[in-house]
């Protein structure tokens, strides 16, 4: 068994109003100095040894993210 983390983020050129809303709220809450916030998704998958990297890439690219609007990274954590 292994834990796999997939992070999905809006592409840099895609407007991210949710991230902007978070960024705009910070000064109101008294936190200065945060210049930009981008909001994405974080998935943790527990997979058995039969799941290879190629399969994980397919899951990330074909389902967990939409390549039109999002970039993703896949990494295995722990052991």
């Amino acid at each position, binding site marked *: 068994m292994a834990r796999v983390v997939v992070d999905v983020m809006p592409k840099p050129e*895609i*407007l991210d*109003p*949710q991230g902007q809303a978070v960024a705009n709220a910070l000064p109101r809450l008294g936190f200065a100095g945060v210049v930009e916030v981008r909001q994405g998704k974080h998935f943790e998958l527990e997979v058995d040894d039969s799941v290879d990297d190629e399969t994980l890439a397919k899951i990330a690219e074909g*389902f967990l993210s*939409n390549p*039109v*609007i999002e970039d993703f990274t896949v990494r295995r954590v722990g052991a």
Partner: protein
Amino acid sequence: MTTVGVITFPGTLDDTDAARAVRYAGAEPVALWHGDADLRGVAAVIVPGGFSYGDYLRAGAIARFAPVMSEVVTAARGGLPVLGICNGFQILCEAGLLPGALLRNAGLHFVCRDQTLRVERTSTAWTSRYTEGDEIVVPVKNMDGRFTASRSTVDELEGEGRVVFRYTGSNPNGSVGDIAGICSASGRVVGLMPHPEHAIDPLTGPSADGLGMFASVLDAVVSA
């Protein structure tokens, strides 16, 4: 009588109104179930609005994998007229039948209002009963209605005249180029965020302006 399939997923909301619109236009609606890989021989398909599978992950991301959608994708590639409304538009984009994607409204609010659209293209399976430049009023109601695509895709859509509807007055969601609806290269598959099925009778909607889409497809089926 011409039959038009209306798909129901768990979380679909507007299948009843879509079926009613089909009936108003003089065709027979046929209920299609998400779990059945069967289009029941219909002459056209409507993918209606709602929140299929709760819109978990992304709007339309899970619905595109439903058994009925594999049939829709195959049939659409063969020329079957398909109309995606709201969540249906999102599903068609996720399924790759239409380019681009729909993102959270720029204002972060769910927008529900009567919206004026300009009909930009009438040579599609779903807009032949309109005249180019017609302004129609239909409701828009969504959270994720901001059409987005790469610059090259948008240029292609504009260059090939594949923008079918454009928001006029004000843009409710920040869609690129005020795009409200687009079509496939063949014009047989159309997707739009606003809801023509809610505007088929002034008694129950802001106008009857949406009925033309459901009537248009009857011509497309006859001429196909």
